[in-house]
C-alpha cells in the first residue's frame, strides 16, 4: 500500500520563501542557476571485487554502484539473452529518513526507473551475455547503493549505473566436461558490450519555477519531479513523473527543453570519466 | 410513475453558475471558476441557483444534534462513533451532570458499548476530537426504537421543506421520527409492523431524494404497505 508521506522533515516556511525569492532572481541557495546541476564527480573502478563499479557525487549526494556478474540461467521466455537486474538500497547511514528494512516504494521506484531506462533502449547487449543458449547466461546485478542523500537520487544513480556498466568486465571462464561453468575470478576478462549510453535528468516544480537537479530540501518542497531519460542520440528512453502534484503541458515542455541541455552536461561528465577514470565537472561561473 | 428530477445532476469538476449557493467543500473555486466537488444537483429556487450534494461525508459542527453509537469506554469518558471521520468524546462528568469519581463510578453502568445516544456537538475544529454533551432536552441514551442510516447529504430531504416530510412520516405511520444531521434517523413506533414500514419509507427517501413529488410517493407507499400488511 502506498501512503502519503507523513514523516517527512519539516522545511521552515521562511526557508521556502527564501528559496522562491532567490528563484525569482534566477538563482539557487548554492549560487547556481535554475537550469544547472550541482558539481558532478564520477569515479569508475572504485571496487576490486565487483566486475564493474562507479562512485558518483552530485553536490552532497553520493551513490555507489557495483555490478556483479554471475553465471546463471536465462528466463524461460528469453533463452537467448542474459539477465539484467537493477536493485536499489537506501541504506540507513545515508539519511535520517532511511530506516533499515526491505526497500520501500521510493527505492523500488528508483531501481525500476533506472532499470527501464536501460532495458527499453537495450543499453546493455543482453544477447552477448549468452554462454550456452537456453542454459547458461551471465546474470548482471546492478546494485545501487545510496551513501548520502541530498536529493536527486535518480540522476546520480543513473550516472553511476551507466559508468559502472561501461567499465564492467565479464571474467574468463572454463567449461567443464560435465557442462559446469567455472569462472576465473581473477582473470582480466572481456569488456561488457554496451550499445547505448543513457542519462536521466530530473527537474522539479517549485512555486512557479522549474529547477534542475533538486537538492533534498528542494525535493521536499517541490510539487512534483519529472525524470526524463535520454540516450546519446537524444531519444527519450524513459520518463516518470514522481510526487503528488499535477503537471501542466507548458511546464512539461519547459522541463523537456532544460533537461535536454543538462543531459549534454551529464554525457560529457560520463565520457570524461570513462576516458580518464574520473572526472569533476563544475559550472563555469 | 416516478418523479422527474428536481434539477440538473452535476459531477465533480463541472462548472457551476458563478453565483451558486452552497457550502464548502461541495463547491470550490479553481482558477477563478466555481466547480462542483461532489456529485450533486443544481436546482433553481426563487431565481437562485442552489447546489445540493447527493453524497457527502458528515463533518460535525458545534450545535449539531447527532445520534452517536458508543464504541469504547475509557476511564472518564466514552468514545462515540458519530458517522464521521472523527470519533467523538462524551465525558462522564457531562453525562452524569455532576463531578465524577473514577474510583466510585463505573462508566459501563451508565452507557455500554453498543448503546445509542442523542447528543449535541459542543466543540470541534478538526484538530481535536468532537466533544459531545447530553445536557439538554431530549438528549441522552436512546432506550427504544430503531436507527436507520442514510447518507448525511439526504437528511434535509428526510426532514422536508418546513418539516413536511417528517410530519408526513409521523402522521402516516404513527411513529416518532427524528432525523439527525449525521445521517442517522431514530424511529420509535407503536408496533413492529409499523416500524418496518417506517424504516422502508426512510430508505425510499434516501434512495430517491433528488426526485420531484417524493412526499406524495412516500405517503402512497406507507398507505399501500399498511393496507398490504393489514396494519
Amino acid at each position, binding site marked *: 500500500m502506498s501512503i502519503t508521506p507523513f514523516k517527512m522533515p519539516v522545511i521552515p516556511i521562511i526557508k521556502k520563501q527564501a528559496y522562491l525569492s532567490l528563484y525569482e532572481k534566477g538563482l539557487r541557495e548554492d549560487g547556481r542557476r535554475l537550469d544547472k546541476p550541482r558539481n558532478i564527480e564520477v569515479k569508475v573502478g572504485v571496487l576490486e571485487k565487483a566486475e564493474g563499479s562507479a562512485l558518483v557525487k552530485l553536490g552532497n549526494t553520493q551513490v555507489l554502484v557495483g555490478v556483479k556478474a554471475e553465471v546463471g540461467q536465462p528466463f524461460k521466455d528469453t533463452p537467448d539473452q542474459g539477465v539484467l537486474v537493477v536493485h536499489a538500497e537506501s541504506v540507513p547511514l545515508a539519511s535520517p529518513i532511511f530506516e533499515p528494512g526491505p526497500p520501500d516504494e521510493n527505492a523500488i521506484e528508483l531501481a525500476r526507473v533506472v532499470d527501464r531506462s536501460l532495458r527499453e533502449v537495450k543499453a546493455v547487449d543482453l544477447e552477448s551475455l549468452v554462454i550456452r543458449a537456453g542454459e547458461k547466461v551471465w546474470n548482471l546485478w546492478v546494485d545501487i547503493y545510496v551513501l548520502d542523500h541530498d536529493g536527486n537520487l535518480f540522476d546520480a544513480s543513473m550516472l553511476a549505473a551507466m559508468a559502472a556498466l561501461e567499465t564492467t568486465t565479464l571474467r574468463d571462464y572454463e567449461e567443464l566436461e560435465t557442462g559446469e561453468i567455472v569462472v576465473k575470478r581473477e582473470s582480466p576478462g572481456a569488456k561488457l558490450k554496451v550499445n547505448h549510453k543513457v542519462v536521466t535528468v530530473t527537474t522539479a516544480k517549485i512555486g512557479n519555477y522549474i529547477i534542475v537537479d533538486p537538492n533534498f530540501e528542494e525535493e521536499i518542497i517541490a510539487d512534483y519531479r519529472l525524470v526524463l531519460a535520454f540516450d546519446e542520440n537524444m531519444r*527519450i528512453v524513459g*520518463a516518470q513523473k514522481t510526487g503528488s502534484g499535477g503537471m*501542466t503541458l507548458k511546464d*512539461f515542455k519547459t522541463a523537456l527543453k532544460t533537461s*535536454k541541455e543538462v543531459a549534454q552536461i551529464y554525457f560529457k561528465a560520463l565520457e570524461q570519466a570513462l576516458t580518464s577514470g574520473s572526472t569533476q565537472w563544475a559550472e563555469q561561473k | 410513475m416516478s418523479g422527474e428530477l428536481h434539477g440538473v*445532476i452535476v459531477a465533480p469538476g463541472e462548472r457551476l453558475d458563478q453565483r451558486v449557493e452552497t457550502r464548502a467543500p461541495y463547491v470550490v473555486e479553481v482558477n477563478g471558476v466555481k466547480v462542483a466537488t461532489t*456529485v450533486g444537483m443544481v436546482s433553481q429556487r426563487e431565481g437562485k441557483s442552489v447546489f445540493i450534494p447527493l453524497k457527502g461525508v458528515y463533518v460535525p459542527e458545534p450545535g449539531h444534534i447527532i445520534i452517536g453509537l458508543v464504541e469504547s469506554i475509557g476511564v472518564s469518558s466514552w468514545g462515540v462513533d458519530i458517522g464521521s*471521520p472523527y470519533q467523538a468524546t462524551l465525558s462522564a462528568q457531562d453525562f452524569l451532570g455532576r463531578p465524577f469519581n473514577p474510583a466510585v463510578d463505573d462508566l459501563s453502568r451508565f452507557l455500554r458499548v453498543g448503546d445509542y445516544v442523542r447528543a449535541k456537538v459542543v466543540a470541534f475544529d*478538526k484538530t481535536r476530537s468532537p466533544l459531545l454533551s447530553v445536557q439538554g432536552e431530549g438528549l441522552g441514551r436512546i432506550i427504544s426504537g430503531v436507527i436507520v442510516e442514510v447518507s448525511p447529504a439526504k437528511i434535509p430531504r428526510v426532514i422536508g421543506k418546513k418539516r413536511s416530510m417528517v410530519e408526513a412520516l409521523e402522521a402516516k405511520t404513527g411513529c416518532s421520527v427524528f432525523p439527525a444531521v449525521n445521517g442517522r434517523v431514530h424511529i420509535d413506533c407503536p408496533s413492529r409492523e409499523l416500524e418496518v414500514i417506517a424504516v422502508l419509507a426512510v430508505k425510499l427517501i434516501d434512495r430517491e431524494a433528488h426526485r420531484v413529488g417524493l412526499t406524495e410517493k412516500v405517503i402512497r407507499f406507507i398507505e399501500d404497505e399498511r393496507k398490504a400488511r393489514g396494519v
Partner: protein
Amino acid sequence: MGGKPKTMLIGEDGLRHDGRKPDEMRPIKMQVGVLANASGSAIVEYGRTRVLAAVYGPREPHQRFMVLPDRAILRVRYHMAPFSTSERKSPAPSRREIELSKVIREALEDVVLLSEYPRTAIDVYLEVLQADGGTRVAGVTAASLALADAGVPMKALVAGVAVGKVGGILVLDVDELEDSKGEADMPVAAAPDIGLVTMFQLNGVLSEDELERGLSMALTAIENIVSMEKEALKRKFEAIGEEV
C-alpha cells in the same frame, strides 16, 4: 524481440491486430456503486482489462500516528488478482505493484481536497480482475469514480490511458500484446478540467516529437473518458427510481 517482423501488430490496411485504428480506444465500460460495504466503488473495463475500485473513508486510521495535522493522507493499493493473468500471479505484492500503487496515489493526490479532513486516511483499493494491458490507467479511472461515488470532494475527475508505439506508429490504449511486443508504452493520467497531467511514465523509446504527439493523443482521449465518468456518476442517480 528485436529483428522480428512487426507486421502482425499493424496490418497493411493500417489497422491494429484487433482491427482498431491507431487512435481508437477499446470499448470502455464503467459503473459506480457496485459494492455494498465500501463508501464508494466502481468497476471499469478497457476491452478485456477489468479493474474494481473501492474507497473507504475518510476515517481515523487504526495507527493514530499515521496522520498529518493539516490534511488527510491517501493510501492506495494496486493489486492483481492471481487469476488476472495468463500464468497465475502470486498474490504477494510484487515490486511492480508497489511502484504502481505509488504512481496511482500520486495521480490522485492533487485533485482530492485532502485538506478538508485533517488527521484522517482515505483508502483506495484497486483489484485488477483481468489484465490485458493498461491496468494502471484503468485503475486510475476506477479510483477517480470510486472517490466521487464515496462523496469525497475533488477539484476534478481524473482518468488514464496508455499510448504506445507499435510498428513505428503511435497507438492509443495499448493492450497486453501491443505492450509486450511494441516499442513503447506511455501511461498517462490527467484531470482535463484543471489542465493537469497527474501520471506520466514512459517505458520504451520515443523521439521528442513522438513524445509530444503521444501525450496530446492521450490527453484528447482522457477528455472523452472523463466525460464518460461524469455520465456514469450521473447515471447512477438518474436511474434510481425509474424502474420503480
